[in-house]
């Protein structure tokens, strides 16, 4: 479904070059929910922009549904980290969800059906006429998720979508993502810097190294499919997986600081 081969991204300015991504290779199969976790500053957002076709890579290739990505792929929806800035403040909640559908050329009746269903899915049936800035951060991110859902994407990319909400809201939103994925089976790539979140949400976790970034590890999450904030997090297997990812990231960071010191 989503193939990344040898992806490399170097930023060049006049007096220096920065190698953000060195060599990224991984793939996401149709219907999978994969979490991409890495330390702060490892180029997660750069990687996501390359996957979303918003940024051209320096080398390597990204392909979605077998077609190489050279611009935003039509079957992909992206949920950005900064919810407050990815919703159109001059449109109501319903208009925000509807906008991509209008440009996709969907008929009025179908648009209404998709918008209503998507808002119900994220638990926002009661606020279609509110403006985004009248809502809390968590609710705004729900609107962004509803917009992605209504678009009926084949692949959904989420860029640290819960980085800026409080802990309780975050747990609710994590469960929402699991539920929606369970029901729709949409291929999902979830980027986060939070190890617990990656292990709790993912069916697989791809661990990134520090910058210049490579794939450090790619491990399946063999936790029960039915997840629960209390029970799942209390499982010994959860702790094991979490510790393993944590160890990987620590050693990656240490390697990076050694390389800096040298």
């Amino acid at each position, binding site marked *: 479904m989503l193939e990344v081969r040898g992806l490399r991204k170097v930023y060049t300015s*006049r007096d220096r070059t920065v190698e953000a991504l060195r060599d990224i290779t991984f793939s996401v199969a149709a219907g999978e929910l994969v979490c991409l976790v890495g330390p702060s500053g490892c180029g997660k957002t750069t990687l996501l922009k390359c996957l979303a076709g918003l940024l051209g890579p320096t080398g390597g290739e990204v392909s979605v549904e077998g077609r190489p990505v050279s611009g935003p792929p039509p079957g992909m929806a992206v949920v950005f980290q900064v919810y*407050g800035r990815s919703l159109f403040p001059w449109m109501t909640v319903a208009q925000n969800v509807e906008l991509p559908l209008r440009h996709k050329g969907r008929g009025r009746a179908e648009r209404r059906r998709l918008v209503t269903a998507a808002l119900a899915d994220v638990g926002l049936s009661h606020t279609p006429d509110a403006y985004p800035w009248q809502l809390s951060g968590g609710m705004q991110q729900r609107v962004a998720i509803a917009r992605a859902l209504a678009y009926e994407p084949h692949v959904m990319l989420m860029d640290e979508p819960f980085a800026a909400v409080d802990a309780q809201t975050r747990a609710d939103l994590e469960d929402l993502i699991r539920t929606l994925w369970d029901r729709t089976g949409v291929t999902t790539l979830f980027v986060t810097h939070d190890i617990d979140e990656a292990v709790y949400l993912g069916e697989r976790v791809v661990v990134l190294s520090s910058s210049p970034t490579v794939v450090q590890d790619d491990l399946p999450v063999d936790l029960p499919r039915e997840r629960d904030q209390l029970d799942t997090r209390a499982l010994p297997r959860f702790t094991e997986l979490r510790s393993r990812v944590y160890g990987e990231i620590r050693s990656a960071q240490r390697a990076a600081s050694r390389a800096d010191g040298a």
Partner: protein
Amino acid sequence: MSARPAGPQVPRTVVLGATGLALTALAAEVLPRALGIPGDVLPPLSVILGALAAELPTPQFRAALGATVVQWGLGLAIAVVLGVSVGVVLGSVPWLRRLTASTVEFLRPIPSVALVPLAVLVLGTQLRSALLLIVYASFWQVLVQTMYGVADVDPVAEQTARSYGLGRWARVRHVLWPTAQPYVATGVRLAAAVALILAITAELVIGSPGLGREIAAAQSGGATALVYGLVLVTGLLGLVVNVGVRALERRLLRWHVSVRGEVAP
């Protein structure tokens, strides 16, 4: 404060901007000739500059330029002093602000040119008439911005100052004025441009001495090239005013720029 590092884009903008100006000048020279536009409609740039060059050394031109600058500066200064003091008083006394709001909203949009006939009748065609128009138009710009600024004072800062026993005057100086300053600067910037517009207007329609009157005289004398040249001079004057006020604003408010740069995320 360190200067902005010279990134690769800074020279590029300068080069492009200079190119744009040069292309415009070239077009102003070549197009009238190439298209055969008659000289009394749009003379080539060199003819305009020639007419202007002949005019520049005359005492008449210097007197006109001086008169415009004096009217502008004097009018702006009066408007700023009046606007800031009235704005601070109205802005910081809530009941006064509520009581005057409707009157301000009514008087502000009255076009100052409506006062032209009255000014001519009562004050004649001299400096005072022009000043009336300039001050009336620029006063509102300063007043309204000052009131916005005073309204923007952080209540927490105000309460903190109160709890430390700062008196009214000390609070105005240390809390209110620093907050209002960037707004006042915006008001002055807007007022400076408006004052120049009204100075030229007064010279044009009332006939008070200055560049506007010279332009009208050159037009009625059929000296089209000189009209263009003088309009160019008023443009350069406007440019000096805009750039000068903006530079002054940046210099005075360097400490405040980061605060003002805050935009809704």
